[in-house]
């Protein structure tokens, strides 16, 4: 293979893997939007909060240490033990379930009959509240996150691909991060698990029923609150997974919550109500922005096109196909 083709392939693969992350964040949006008609502005902050909680629990941080110290004059910061990653992930999931419960009980239930825009505003408020709450609980400093996933370039892939170049050309092989590979595998399992849950369980069927028709779901005795708590919990778990992936790469700090900004064009592309749309949309945008930067952006436009490419692509898409790739008619709340 010629070198330029190998390079393009490498960029595409890395793009796809970034796309997996976008897909996950978009998936969280779609789940909540489909089942409750709420555009959850706080999805990105949920990922940040989940990652902060995970690191905090893992490293045995005392929650609200600053607050406790300020009030009592003590100097607590850590319990002095580490919690194994798996246990920490389980505990963080529980934290996200509690969070889901509080959101539904305190916000959703009270605003249930309001206009969608009011619910949207409520999630903006929620996002800023959570951001502050997360900092208060775990501290705002940059933290590194390590749940034991391997990282660094895969030597195996490098060795294998190095031989794909034509005779006489120097090529060192492709760089593919093992962390990305793991993230992709995990994401595939997560999506498969969610699909099986939605398709074949009683709660999953009820969840799809609620997404289809709120009123009818109520009429057959499905409790909307329970389904919403479930959906927000699942979205919280998806946010945790996204937070782990991003946090393992770039550390846990405020900028993590900005991955939500990457999910927005994915939703415009894939449709707000389509799970396959979120996944395919994420992959297209992940790959598209890397390829564009590689082929056009860096050589001709002075680079840094990744910041806006996704939005331009999504905008073009909106003009020609407003419902997105796979989106069905946007479901309005009752």
């Amino acid at each position, binding site marked *: 293979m010629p070198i330029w083709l190998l390079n393009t392939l490498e960029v595409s693969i890395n793009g796809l893997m970034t796309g997996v992350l976008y897909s996950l964040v978009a998936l969280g949006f779609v789940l909540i939007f489909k089942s409750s008609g709420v555009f959850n502005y706080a999805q990105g902050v949920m990922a940040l909060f989940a990652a902060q909680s995970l690191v905090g629990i893992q490293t045995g941080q005392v929650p609200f240490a600053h607050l406790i110290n300020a009030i009592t004059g003590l100097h607590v910061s850590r319990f002095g033990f580490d919690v194994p990653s798996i246990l920490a992930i389980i505990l963080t999931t529980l934290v996200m379930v509690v969070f889901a419960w509080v959101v539904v009980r305190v916000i959703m239930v009270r605003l*249930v*009959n309001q206009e969608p825009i009011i619910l949207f505003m409520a999630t903006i408020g929620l996002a800023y509240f959570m951001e502050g709450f997360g900092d208060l609980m775990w501290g705002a400093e940059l933290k590194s996150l390590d749940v034991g996933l391997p990282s660094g370039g895969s030597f195996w892939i490098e060795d294998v691909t190095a031989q794909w170049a034509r005779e006489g050309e120097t090529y060192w092989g492709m760089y593919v991060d093992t962390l990305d590979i793991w993230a992709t595998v995990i994401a595939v399992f997560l999506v498969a698990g969610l699909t099986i849950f939605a398709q074949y369980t*009683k709660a999953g*069927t*009820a969840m*799809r*029923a609620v*997404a*289809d*028709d*709120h*009123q*009818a*779901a*109520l*009429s*057959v*005795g*499905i*409790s909307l609150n329970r389904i919403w708590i479930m959906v927000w919990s699942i979205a919280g778990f998806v946010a945790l997974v996204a937070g782990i992936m991003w946090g393992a790469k770039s550390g846990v700090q405020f900028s993590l919550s900005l991955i939500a900004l990457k999910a927005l064009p994915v939703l415009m592309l894939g449709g707000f109500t389509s799970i396959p749309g979120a996944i395919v949309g994420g992959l297209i945008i992940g790959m598209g922005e890397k390829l564009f930067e590689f082929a056009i952006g860096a050589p001709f436009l002075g680079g840094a096109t990744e910041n806006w490419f996704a939005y331009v692509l999504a905008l073009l898409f909106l003009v020609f196909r407003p419902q997105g790739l796979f989106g*069905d008619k946007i479901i309005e709340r*009752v």
Partner: protein
Amino acid sequence: MLDTAQTDETLLEVNNIEVIYNHVILVLKGVSLKVPRGGITALLGGNGAGKSTTLKAISGLLASERGEVTKGSILYRGATTQDRSPNDLVRGGVIQVMEGRHCFEHLTVEENLMTGAYTRSAAEAKQGLEMVYNYFPRLRERRKSQAGYTSGGEQQMCAIGRALMSKPETVLLDEPSMGLAPQLVEEIFGIVKSLNEQEGVSFLLAEQNTNVALRYAHYGYILESGRVVMDGVASELRENPDVKEFYLGVGDEGRKSFRDVRSYRRRKRWLS
């Protein structure tokens, strides 16, 4: 209709209720009715009379439409239904089949039916499914189809079947005849009748199609602008000259409002 199934025991009692939407729109202005165990009770009236609103007030669905019962009471088996959620009422045996079917269109027919058993155990759901397929053989044929792609008649059957999956004691059935060919209407009412007689399900049936409804019901209430203007045994209502004129379309004078008819004295019961 034979009055074999109907008993004297009152299951559901609506006492002079007033319903307001959005805190301002007064829609029901004192509706009272009774549904006996084992009966088919018809609630008749034209567009906007308040039939659906009455059913939603009973099933607890009003709250999600910003409606509120502001006066009067609704008793099921003697206990008030105020503040009971639809979920709780379905568990207690009262379920509504909404106007316009409202099937879950992206779910298959069988998945639709299964959602009806949300409040029941897996074993009960399985039994229920057999029962529903026996009454609606057509649903068995279409069980794997997406409900959104089935015909109007099949969707109505699906909606009724879905409600039956909750093992109801009382079904609040809202306009099952809507948009269906006369033959299909007869078929569906026939099934309602056999469900009533064989499974002992009581029905409160909201209908604009007075003719069909009074042939299948035991008792009827006529609603106009949020008030019950007349009630009686179905066979008597069918013979009543005013009903004939205004709702069965067999009178010979021009149409006027029911309330203008002098021969008719409005009855207001349970008025406080």
